[in-house]
C-alpha cells in the first residue's frame, strides 16, 4: 500500500477511535463525491492530498504527507447556533492530531494543521451546506 494511503488509513482509524462532541462517520476516498441529499447526516471524508519528499540526512528521506479531512453537513438553519458546533468539531479534529503520532502508523508525526478553508461561504450560500476542509501534514522520516 502506498505510504500516503497508509497514513490516510491511519487517520481514518484515529478518527473512528476518537470521541468528539458529536458522532462522526468517516470514509477514505480517492475520488470523493457526495450527493447533496446524502449530507443530511454529518460526513467526514479523508482524502490523500500530496507528498513532499526531501533529504533528511545522507541516509534518510523526509516525506511530508498531506491528508485532507472534509467535514460536511447540510444545514437545517443558517444561524450561528447550527454553524458553531460544526466549526467546533473541525477544530476538535485539528486539535486531536496536533503534534501527535498516529497509533496505527507511529512513524507519522503530525507537524502542521491548516484549514483550507475554515469554512466555505459559497457552500452555505448556494447549497445551505457546511463544508470545512482541514489539511493535516504528517512527517515520515525513513
Amino acid at each position, binding site marked *: 500500500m502506498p505510504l500516503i494511503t497508509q497514513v490516510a488509513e491511519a487517520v481514518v482509524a484515529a478518527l473512528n477511535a476518537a470521541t468528539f462532541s458529536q458522532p462522526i462517520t468517516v470514509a477514505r476516498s480517492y475520488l470523493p463525491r457526495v450527493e447533496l441529499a446524502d449530507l443530511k447526516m454529518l460526513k467526514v471524508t479523508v482524502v490523500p492530498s500530496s507528498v513532499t519528499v526531501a533529504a533528511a540526512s545522507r541516509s534518510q528521506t523526509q516525506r511530508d504527507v498531506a491528508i485532507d479531512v472534509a467535514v460536511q453537513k*447540510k444545514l437545517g438553519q443558517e444561524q450561528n447556533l447550527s454553524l458553531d458546533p460544526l466549526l467546533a468539531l473541525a477544530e476538535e479534529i485539528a486539535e486531536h492530531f496536533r503534534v501527535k503520532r498516529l497509533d496505527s502508523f507511529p512513524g507519522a508525526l503530525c507537524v502542521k494543521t491548516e484549514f483550507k478553508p475554515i469554512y466555505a461561504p459559497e457552500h452555505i450560500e448556494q447549497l445551505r451546506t457546511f463544508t470545512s476542509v482541514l489539511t493535516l501534514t504528517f512527517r515520515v522520516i525513513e
Partner: protein
Amino acid sequence: MADLLAQGAAWLEQQRTKHLATTVTYVRGNQSVEVAATIGRTKVEADDGHVVRVEFTDRDFLILAVDLVLNGQPSEPERGDLIREGPREFEVLDWRYSDPYRQTLRLTTKHVGATET
C-alpha cells in the same frame, strides 16, 4: 383603460397552471399548502471546489403568487422552505417574480432527498 398586456399575462398564467402544472406541497416548518406548480429548468450540477465534489439537482418551480398561503396568510417564499413533489423533497434557495405583473413566483431549489414523514 384596461391593461391588455396584464390581462393577457394573467390569462396565460391561468392556462399554465391549468394545463402545465402538477400538484406539489409547499412546506414551511409545520405549515404546508398544496399548490399547482410548473416544473421549470432542471439540471444536475456539481461543485468540486473543496476536496469533495458535491453533486446536486437544481430545479425551478413556477407557482402562482396568490396560491402561496401559509397559516391563512399570503406569504412570500423563504430560504429553507421545502417543496415536496411525490417522494422527493426540494429546498428553496432563492426566488423571484417571473413576470412583470408579479403573478408568478420562480422558486430556485435543490434536491435534498426523500420526503421525511
